[in-house]
């Protein structure tokens, strides 16, 4: 992966003095892998080391940023206390499509600088460390994808010329922003950017940046970039590549069962779970986790791919067979291996949000119901 400037603070000071940079995007990824943060004037960033605080609710919020009292990490009961971002200047990268801006991701920490257990970046770090303890230093790649809508709500054919031109613009901007895009493909379903291979957390961060760039640059071109999974019968997917990994037939069944239990984290919406269950498939030179929703958090997708391969416990329970989000979340809650690898804190905060998402959908009467049942006597 590309690296930032070796002496980030000096570089940034020089850029600021030269008028090249005016704003730093102090950034983090939310639980759906969306790019969030504050825009900090470079003068304040340099004076304050860029530390910012924000309400912990943002780490346990749903897709509409709503929060619920059922998440133990942050709720009305503890008053949604602050968590903090403490950027490392060596992680600074230019936002190539926004002149004058640079970005810097940081892991959310508590008051004392300790890890926040519901932040997926920390979860991935822990999984990578466990893998490393077994002698495996994983390299990963991600294929991030989206579809485009016009202002009129029409789907833009991904392999149309406007979409392809747009994809080249995005890819150029990402590469200039330190994101290692190696391939851009368009097919009937989505525009896809392959990022990596590289160290997992760097690839996950790059995927979050890529999603943000897709959104921003789509808007600039008069489109809307959507990460919704199933649209007009077609499914879009994010893929996780694990080069150099071989999967023996004997290990296959355990991996399949583990991923089934983790399904609602890989397909975290009522729409996403309409797709087939994510699974590992071989490709020349490695294996690929296929069928992950573009709505999923890349950090968690990578963590689960690595953990599913690393876990050694025999999965003896029944297959997770849920095809509905609430049911899948209930099965996730009882998954020993997911708890072991992602941590109880992560699971205990993810499950209520998935169940709440399902509950919200359960209150909605769909067009399909009206068509199917409306004429019954």
């Amino acid at each position: 992966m590309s690296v930032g400037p070796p002496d980030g603070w000096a570089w940034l000071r020089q850029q600021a003095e030269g008028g090249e940079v005016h704003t730093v995007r102090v950034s983090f990824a939310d639980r759906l892998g969306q790019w969030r943060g504050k825009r900090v004037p470079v003068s304040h960033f340099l004076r304050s080391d860029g530390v910012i605080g924000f309400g912990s609710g943002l780490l346990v919020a749903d897709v509409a940023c709503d929060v619920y009292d059922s998440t133990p990490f942050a709720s009305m009961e503890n008053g949604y206390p602050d968590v903090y971002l403490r950027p490392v200047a060596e992680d600074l990268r230019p936002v190539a499509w926004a002149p004058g801006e640079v970005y810097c991701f940081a892991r959310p920490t508590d008051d004392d600088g300790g890890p926040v257990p519901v932040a997926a970046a920390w979860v991935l770090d822990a999984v990578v460390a466990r893998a490393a303890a077994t002698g495996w230093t994983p390299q990963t790649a991600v294929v991030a994808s989206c579809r485009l809508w016009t202002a009129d709500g029409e789907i833009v054919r991904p392999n149309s010329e406007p979409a392809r031109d747009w994809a080249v613009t995005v890819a150029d901007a990402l590469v200039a922003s330190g994101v290692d895009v190696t391939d851009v493909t368009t097919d009937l379903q989505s525009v896809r950017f392959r990022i990596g291979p590289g160290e997992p957390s760097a690839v996950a961060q790059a995927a979050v940046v890529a999603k943000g760039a897709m959104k921003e640059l789509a808007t600039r071109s008069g489109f809307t970039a959507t990460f919704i999974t199933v649209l007009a019968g077609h499914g879009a997917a994010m893929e996780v590549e694990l080069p150099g990994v071989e999967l023996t037939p004997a290990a296959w069944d355990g991996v399949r069962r583990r991923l089934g239990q983790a399904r609602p984290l890989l397909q975290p919406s009522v729409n996403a779970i309409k797709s087939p269950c994510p699974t590992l498939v071989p490709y020349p030179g490695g294996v690929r986790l296929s069928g992950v929703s573009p709505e999923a958090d890349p950090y968690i997708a990578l963590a689960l791919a690595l953990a599913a391969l690393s876990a050694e416990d025999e999965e003896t329970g029944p297959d997770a067979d849920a095809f509905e989000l609430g049911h899948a979340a209930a099965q996730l809650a009882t998954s020993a291996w997911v708890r072991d690898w992602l941590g109880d804190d992560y699971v205990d905060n993810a499950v209520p949000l998935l169940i709440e998402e399902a509950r919200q959908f359960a209150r909605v009467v769909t067009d399909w119901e009206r068509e199917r049942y409306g004429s019954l006597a």
Partner: protein
Amino acid sequence: MTPQWTEVVWVDLLGTAHTLLRRNDLLDEPVPVSRGMVAPGDGTTAAHARDLLVRPDRKTLRANAFRPGTDVVLADLAEVDGRDSELCARTALRRVLGEAGSTGFDVYAAVELEAYLVDPATSTPAYRQTDCYGMARSAQFENLLAPLRNGLLAMDIEVEASNLEYSGGQVEVNLRYAPALKAADDGVLLRVATQTVAQRCGLEATFMAKPWTDQAGSGMHVHQSLWRAGRNAFAEPDGSLSGMARSYLAGLLDRMVDLTLLGSPTANAYHRRVSGSFAPTVVGWGGDNRTLAVRAITSNPAATRLEQRDASADCNIYLALAGQVAAGMDGVGTGRIPPPPVTGNSYARTDLPRLPSSIVEAHDRFAASAFARRAIGDTLTQAYLDAIRLEVDLSLRSSAGWERRRHLGGSVLRVDR
């Protein structure tokens, strides 16, 4: 020779900023304004009908980044005979800060204001779905927010950050703490600049407390601390609250009910002050807990401070600060001890003093408060109450859309959906 102009900014009693462009060579000649414009509800008798003078405070003069080629200056209000006007909120804050200063302490503050960007064609938020801190979404508004941040910085207003807030269309710009009068001036200029830049981008900006029933309210959190000889007197070496901070805190809490009106001067503001809204409904303090009226922020010894969270973004910033600082200093002067900190969800607490839930209740508490009169002065208190009563009267005469939806035809038939 091309005349040079200065934008003179002053606020009325309810906190609305007014501006006028004054030719620079006339800047030291005060400009008369109608007393009723400053204090609606006052000036109904001949004795009160004299104009007031807008008197620029040259210490605040600077280049106006939002109107190139002009300057901007904050102004006080004076009587026609040149005396400071007792109706001037900025002067009232300066007096309260002077009293604090006479005890050897400087008051530092930061105001944290939320606003909505509004599509003027539809009078709805500039975007629909909440995208708190969303980077991609906020990029759509960087044509507004970047010039706002950079312009304020150029005007010696230290912007720390900007972000999207907790409802569609809602934004926040964080300002660095400063001596309290400058902090209030910065807040006023931020509001003016936000509206200016928004209009240039084809939007409106509103600091209204609660523009939409189903969206978050816009608050003004006030961060405050006392300093002596360059040292934060609120912090013990480990960052925890000092005895002085605790007394100040006790003062804030003791007077919070009586002074609610200063931070929430409209009937609309009370729609924001409800359970679960992150605006407080009871008097309580504690650590890092967003359900409380006052948060003690002690994570960094250099930045230990108290954050009072009840005011709305459209209040008179000078008066809100004057009330809070007076209350805090009263706590210090009398050596008060705060009650124990509150933990947990304060909205669920029924044993704590309840904050006013309507403007009428807040008005009555303020009117009955001898402390309020001492803090901001008899004349200002009375004029403020007059202005509020006019506000109450107007709100009582209005018929809200919600009422029509709920009750139109309701006496005959109501179908619950």
